[in-house]
């Protein structure tokens, strides 16, 4: 009895604190801001897929609105304000560069919920952040890359030098190096999320250097299209399965599966259980999926890769497990130590063995 009273009091307090939202809603207007076109076949395509899963889950109880190709900067702030004025109850901003705009607009609309993908700023109670542990997928790609490369040169098309991207490069390299000590990694910085021409040029530059396994941290299928032109070069689907290249260079993929998170958050808003959070799920939570590994990969390598995936899912293996040194030789993780999340989220260094510098 006493316990129930306590809960009831707590619930009432919560209701008073957060107003109408604690009571749930009959209908939610969920809005999405995309950095590229839905047709990119990668990053934005997957976010839109997530939005469509929300629609499928709640039917008439949700209304979906979205805008493609919103530049990161002043324009984002206007688009967000228009959405908030237009009656959106929850707005998902799906690129890192929307961080300041999201927080600025959130301050003006305390009754609208904002969800910012891959950021870290939650300056107001109505801003949540969410991300996925893509580096887990990079570990599996690195393993395959180390085993499959014939030239011992592997490549990585990087977008921007932010921790998100750097941790992917490190994870990819560490796992390639583990199975192939001779492996060398070349990183090309494209300074874009979505620019098929630039992405293709980057892939071409890598291939010209003798690279035969290409990973990409950009949003389009252009790197795979470029790899397909050269016999013996393989690559990976990025953000989306990119299954169209299964008969070509794509040997596996990292699939961003945002649907479950979006369904959960909009659901929470509908039933009144919504709270501010900082979500970072990975393979275990189903946010990162590993696409089918094709027959180009030898059966034993495929089995090892799948075993790694299952170990990560079960929580028995962490891709960043010591001993790991930084590029300059100073120790980062001691024997058996796993990387704390804080280190990963602020990662601004290469691990030992990677040549070249992070652009500064």
């Amino acid at each position, binding site marked *: 009895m006493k316990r129930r009273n306590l809960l009831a009091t707590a619930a009432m307090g919560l209701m008073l604190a957060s107003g109408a939202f604690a009571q749930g809603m009959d209908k939610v207007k969920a*809005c999405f801001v995309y950095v590229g*076109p*839905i047709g990119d076949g990668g990053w934005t395509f997957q976010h839109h897929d997530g939005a469509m899963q929300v629609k499928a889950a709640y039917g008439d109880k949700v209304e979906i*609105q*979205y*805008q*493609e*190709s919103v*530049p*990161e*900067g*002043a*324009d984002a*702030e*206007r*688009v967000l*304000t*228009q*959405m908030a*004025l*237009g009656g959106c109850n929850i707005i998902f901003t799906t690129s*890192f*560069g929307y961080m*300041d705009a999201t927080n*600025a607009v959130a301050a003006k609309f305390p009754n609208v919920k904002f969800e910012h993908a891959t950021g*870290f700023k939650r300056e107001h109670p109505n801003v949540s952040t969410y991300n996925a542990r893509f580096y887990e997928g990079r570990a599996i790609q690195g393993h395959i890359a180390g085993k499959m490369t014939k030239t011992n040169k592997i490549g990585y098309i990087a977008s*921007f*030098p*932010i*921790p998100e991207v750097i941790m992917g490069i490190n994870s990819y390299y560490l796992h390639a190096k583990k199975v192939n000590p001779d492996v060398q990694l070349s990183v090309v*910085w494209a*300074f*874009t999320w979505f620019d098929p021409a630039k992405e293709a040029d980057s892939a071409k530059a890598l291939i010209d250097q003798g690279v035969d396994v290409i990973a990409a941290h950009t949003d389009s299928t252009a790197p795979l299209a470029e790899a397909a032109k050269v016999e013996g070069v393989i690559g990976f689907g990025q953000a989306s399965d990119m299954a169209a290249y299964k008969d070509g260079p794509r040997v596996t993929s990292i699939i961003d599966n945002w649907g479950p998170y979006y369904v959960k958050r909009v659901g929470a808003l509908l039933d009144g259980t919504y709270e501010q959070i900082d979500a970072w799920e990975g393979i275990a939570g189903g946010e990162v999926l590993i696409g089918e590994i094709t027959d180009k990969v030898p059966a034993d390598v495929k089995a090892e890769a799948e075993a790694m995936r299952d170990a990560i899912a079960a929580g028995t293996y962490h891709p960043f497990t010591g001993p790991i040194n930084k590029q300059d030789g100073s120790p980062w993780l001691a024997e058996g130590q796993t990387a704390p999340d804080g280190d990963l*989220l*602020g*990662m*601004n260094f290469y691990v030992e063995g990677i040549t070249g510098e*992070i*652009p*500064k």
Partner: protein
Amino acid sequence: MLRLEKRPTPSRFWLYATPPVAVILTMIAGGILFAAMGKNPFEVIRTIFWDPVFGEFAFYLRGQLLVKAGPLILIAIGLALGFRAGIWNIGAEGQYIMGAIIGASVGLAVFPTENRLIFPVMVIAGAFGGWAWAMIPAILKTRFNTNEILVSLMLVYVAQTILAKASTGFLKNPEGMGFPGSRNFSSYPAAQNAELIAGTGLHWGGVAALVTAVLAWILLTRHQAGFQIRLAGQAPRAARFHGVSPARLVVLCMGISGALAGMAGLFEVTGPAGQISIDFNTGYGFTAIIVAFLGRLNPLGIVLAGFLMALTYVGGEMAATNLGLPAAAIQVFQGMLLFFLLAVDVLTNYRFRLAVGAH
């Protein structure tokens, strides 16, 4: 058979009639495009051209029109001076970026000092940054006769690389947890380009744009330099006989357009964009070329053209979100505007004649 015949003198009627005709043709062709996509064309056109100014959220969007039009007008006026004299600065985007970097650097160097002079000094530094960047193609042209179109365009890509360096290196926010991007100027009042009247969207950039438009109009119509610019464009040989030095004109026009673009960049990073980031530039320097021509290279026309262009952006966004149009359809729509403008523009210098017989 219809045949194009050159007019003895450009038609004054078509000079001024071209922009409105182009807008109407764009609406018609755009409407057909939207209808083919299964949307109600009247609703889309209304959302783009009417709603931002008179619709439900006009109180917010009118200000946003000013935010968007300000830098376009400022850059376009500078470009128009050069274009009139036959000097083609295509690299305003690079000058815009460099102005923003130099101006922001000055402000961030003295962070967190509070002093009234900081912002004005930053504006001057921004103008200097854009001017200096424009001087490269200008001097290469006057000294070595290089093509300023190519050089200024290529320098845009150099500027973008420097911008990437700035936001991941020397201007990176020391408290930003390693993420690229400078400090946000909204947290540094002395260097912030805040709204002058809350809710109007009017900041110093908008003021500068309107003042510059008036000054440029006076320069072109009342001042010796303005006369030389017009003469050099219309009759280069006559200009030389008249004692106009082509080299000085190149330096003057490139310098003015660079400085204005640089100022626009500084106003943008300290105001609406808030910070130097890898891609704070959203192509204003290129869009301003369209604005300059849409405004007939006339400062007052450019002000109108700037607002029209802003309308297609802000209204286009409304149409994209509220009516579910793909972003590409809006871009096509904006592209049509330039296409029809250039097409109709033929009538200024040519007229149609019925050709009789062969040859």
